Every structure is written in C-alpha cells, then in structure tokens.
C-alpha cells in the first residue's frame, strides 16, 4: 500500500466487487437484502453514473466501496488490495490516501471556515497543512465559485455547502472519487458547473469517479451508467 502523503500519490486502480450482498434488519426484525452484486468491475479511471430510485441502495453501495460498511458476503478489491478484508485502521489509511467522498448531506464541520473544512483531511496525517495544499484548496474553492474562505460553513447556503463538500473531496487528488447526489442542492446552472468541475477534477488526477445521481446533465457527462434497483441484481446498462 502506498504510504506516501504527497498529493499525487495514489493512482487509480481497478475496483472489483464480487459476490457482494448486504443485508439489513427491517423494522419487523426480518432481514432484507439491500445490495446484491454478483460481479462488478470498474476499470481504473472510469467515470460511472449510478442511478436508481430512492432506497435502491445507491448510498449503501458507495458506503460498501468506501469501506464504511463491511458487506454481509463477498469481497471489494481496489487493485490487488482486498478492502473488505482489511483491518479498520488500514481501511482508514486507505480512505485517507485514496478516496474523496462527497456525502449526500455534505457533512461539513459547521464551526470551521471554508478553507479549514477543505484542508481538514490533511490534518489527519500531518501536523501542519503545507502551503501548497492551502494554495490548492484556495484555487479549487475559487473554481467552485466560493469567495471569502474565512466564512464558517455553518452559515453557508446549501448550494455553497455542496460546493465546499466537493472541493474537500477532490482537493487532495484522490484516485477514487465517490459522490452521493453531488448536484442535488444546486440550481441547474450551478449543477452543470459543479458537475463539470467534478469530472474535470477526476480527469486531472486520472481518478475513478462514481456518482450516484438523478441529475440527467451529470449522467450525460459520465461515460457509463449503472442502473440499480431494489429487487433485482445490479445490471449494467449502456445508454
């Protein structure tokens, strides 16, 4: 596993899910199947759109890939690394080095300002956020149309928060970007702009991008689309 902390450290690798199922216990105590993915391979650097009705498991699939949930069965691998078998500490490190996640609810730290939110992941591994990292964060924020980086994110509009969340996810040039409805809070013009930025950022870093989204414009920007449904195993649709 690459241990370097330099921004362009991890390179995209193939993501492979095989025999993955995820069961939850419903309100009546009976388990129900949230995910059932016999085999899915995402080549390195691919841009995938994930679509499906609400509750179809899009978020769960992203969480399984990110290692935030361990699947009930099956394996998730990133290149040669079998993520689903790693101990928690190694998975934390893998996420820090490889992954940029845009959460559906943004999950910003409202008491911190925009810049501190974007550079927060850098403080997980080093004492100081180096100047180049600060500058890149500022540059990305500027491209996202964010001004006055000293504002606390708690006072921002949803649209602004969404853009901070995306800036935070792509700032460290991750090799894998997972985005959960990244344009849901934006008006059409901004959504288009942010969608473009997300794809650009992925291109720039040669990263694999997986977006769960209903946004047709964003889906159109992505090379491949996957339909996910509650009842049937995931199947690939080429639009």
């Amino acid at each position, binding site marked *: 596993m690459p241990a370097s902390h330099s921004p362009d450290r991890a390179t995209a690798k193939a993501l492979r899910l095989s025999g993955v199922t995820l069961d939850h216990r419903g309100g009546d105590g009976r388990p129900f199947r949230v995910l059932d993915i016999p085999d899915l391979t995402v080549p390195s650097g691919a841009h995938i759109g994930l679509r499906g009705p609400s509750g179809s498991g899009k978020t*769960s699939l992203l*969480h399984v890939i*990110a290692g*935030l*949930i*361990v699947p009930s069965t099956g394996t998730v691998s990133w290149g040669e690394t079998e993520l689903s078998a790693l101990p*928690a*500490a190694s998975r*934390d*490190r*893998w*996420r*820090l*080095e490889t*992954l940029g*996640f845009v*959460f559906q609810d943004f*999950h910003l*730290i*409202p*008491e*911190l300002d925009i810049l*501190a939110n974007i550079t*927060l*992941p850098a*403080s*997980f*591994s*080093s*004492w*100081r*956020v180096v100047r180049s990292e600060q500058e890149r964060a500022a540059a990305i924020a500027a491209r996202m149309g964010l001004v006055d980086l000293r504002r606390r994110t708690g006072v921002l509009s949803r649209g602004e928060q969404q853009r901070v969340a995306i800036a*935070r996810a792509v700032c460290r040039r991750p090799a894998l970007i997972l985005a959960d409805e990244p344009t849901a809070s934006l008006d059409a013009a901004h959504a288009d702009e942010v969608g473009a930025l997300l794809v650009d950022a992925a291109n720039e870093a040669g990263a694999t991008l997986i977006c769960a989204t209903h946004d047709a414009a964003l889906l159109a920007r992505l090379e491949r689309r996957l339909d996910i449904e509650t009842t049937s195993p995931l199947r690939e649709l080429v639009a």
Partner: protein
Amino acid sequence: MNPFAMVLADLRALRWTAAAIVMLVALAVAIGVAIGAQERALRQSSAAAADDFDLLIGAPGSQAQLLMSTVYLQLDAIPLMEGSVLRSLTQDDRVAAFAPIAFGDVTRGYPIIGTTAAFAARWGRIAPSEGRLFAAEGEAMIGADVDYRLGESITPSHGVAGQAHKPGEADADEAGHRHAGHDYTIVGRLPPLGSPWDRAILVPIESVWEVHGLGNGHAAGTETIGPPFDGVTIPGVPAIVVKPRSIAGAYALRSQYRQGGTMAFFPAEVLVGIYRALGDARGVLVLASTLNATLVLASILLLLIAVTGLRRRRYAVLRAMGAPRLYVLLVIWLGMAALMALGCIAGLLLGGAAASVLSGLIEAQTGLRLAISLGRPEFLQIGVLFVVGSVLSLLPAIASFTNPIASGLRG
C-alpha cells in the same frame, strides 16, 4: 496529525454544555479543596496555638475544658487549685519555668489574663512589638488584635461564666461588674501569635489576686511580681503552665501532679483526642466530597454520552474521510481535558477563596488564625478527577468504534 482545529470546533459547538462541564468540575474541586485545606489549617493552627503550653496543671476536672480555657481562651468557670503548688514548682529541679494563668475578668469583651511577664513573652520567644513587658502591678500588655492604645487605662469587670463577650465591645453586664479602683495602664503590645491570645490583655497574676482581695502571693510587704511566690498563703489559680527541663522530667511531673488535688496533662495528648474526633468528622467530610466528585463525574459522563450521541455523526464523518481512530480519540480527549483543566483551575481558585472566607469567619469567632495552603492531598484529588473524568469521556467514542461508520453517518 493535528487535532487542534477539530478540538476548537468541538468546543465551539459544545458552548453551553462546555460551560456546564467547567462549572460542575469547578464546584466539585472547590468543595473538595475547601474542606481539605480548611480542616488541615484548623489542625495546624490549633496545634501551633498550644506550642508554648508544654504541660498544664489544674484542679481535677475536665482536661478539655482546661485546655480550651487556657490555650484557646474559651473561658469557663474552672475550679481553682491550691496556690501552694506554685511554691513546690519553684523548688522543683525538673521545672525550667512555670507560669500561673488566671482568668475571669474582662474589659470591652477582651479577657484579662493574669500570668507572669516571662510567659507573656512566651519564655523569651517573642518580644513586645510596642512598648515593654509589664514590670509592676497595675501594668498591662495587650495582644496584637486588642483595640486599645499604649498608655490607655483599663477597668476590669468581673466576667460571668458562659457569658459571651464580643471582643472590642463593652456590654451592660460588663458595666455592672466593674472592679472600681483597680485600673491597669497599658505599657506594651505583643506581636501577633495567630492564636486567641492575640485578643487577650495580660496582666501580672498578682494584680488579679489583688483585684479580688486575695493578697499578692508574696511575702508581706513585698511588691515584686512573678516567681518565686513566697507568701505565707498563696491564692489559688485555675491553671499553671509548666516548661519542663527534659522529656523524662515532663512525664515525671505529669504523673506527680496527677494526684494530690491536681491534674496534669500535655495539651498535645488532649488535642490528639480531639483530632481523632475531628478525624471522624473529617472522614465524613471526605466521604461527602468523594460522593460529590463521583456525582459530578457521573453527570459529566451523562452529559458526554448525550453529547457524543449527538456527535456520533461528526466522528463518523471524520472516520469516513480517513481519520484514524486515534485522531478521533485525541480530539475528544483534548477537548475534555481542556474543559476539565479549566474547571480544576477555577475550582482551585474558588475553593481557595471559599476556604479563606471560612477562615475569616473562624478567626472572627475564635481568634485562631488559619493559614490556608493547598497541599498534596488537594492536588492528588484534582489529579484523580482530571484523569478519571477525561478518560471516561473516551468511553462513548470507543464504544461507537464497534459499529460500522456508515451507521454513524446516518445517526
């Protein structure tokens, strides 16, 4: 890793909860510190007040009562012993020095104590801060806190046992019992002793005897003061302080004067008994303050569990972004440690202030000066509270690590 940005963000987010935690900790620490420091100060200064009283001889009765009357001037009706004891002590080789102590008169609420000039100077340990020691009948020395000036004259009144006199104020009862024609002139002031004797007026024992028409205890026609008391009849006294030459002599004197119409004891032994009783009371206080600290810890823990429940999501987010568990624990611990430290410091100050106020009250009541100091027990107590409190704060977070991060994100 640098958790400080998140620590600050957390403290900002907690605000009122943080203030409540600081206050709870401060109160717990303050109560513990005040009780501990107060109790120790009381013990130390009450022992220090008894320093010059090596061996006390009195008429048979209550040792505690005699001790309270002579050392702490909590005056009471004390039976007198034969004055002839003074004569035998003069001739005793084992005695380095001795002084009769007679009380009963008051002026403006200050007790007038008849004794010798040597004991007024505490066997030479202290010298008058103003003026000189009394050298003849009719002269008086005042304690450091007595509100009279040198050269003023004092008319003693006969005190009534059990009567509460307020120092510095004459009352109607005092006015009705004046010994007319027996005035004292103040010739000197003593430096502060930190004991109730700072509020006493010291006069020659001979004067006290004369005021009550008992003669002066010396051979007819002589007007000297102090030992030897060589009169044919020596008036009785309630107490004699003896400074023995040796420890062996002290024990021999104690056992000799335990019979034949007197009792003798070391104030220290009576104090040990009192402290033992105080110690029981202290045990109760310590238990109370430990319970108090436990309750505070419990409420902090509850607060934290509630807060961590709310913050489960926040910590899950950090983990989801790749923060190691250690980072999350550091953020929580540093935040809590900062609050606890703030609370401990505030509590120390608060407890010190409370103990000082309490000391002031005790001094006003008894004249015992209590020097408040913080000792190892207080710091130990605070240290335990700090460590236990801040470590307990980690438990909810550690417990949350067993759940998948994704479930924390939803919470």
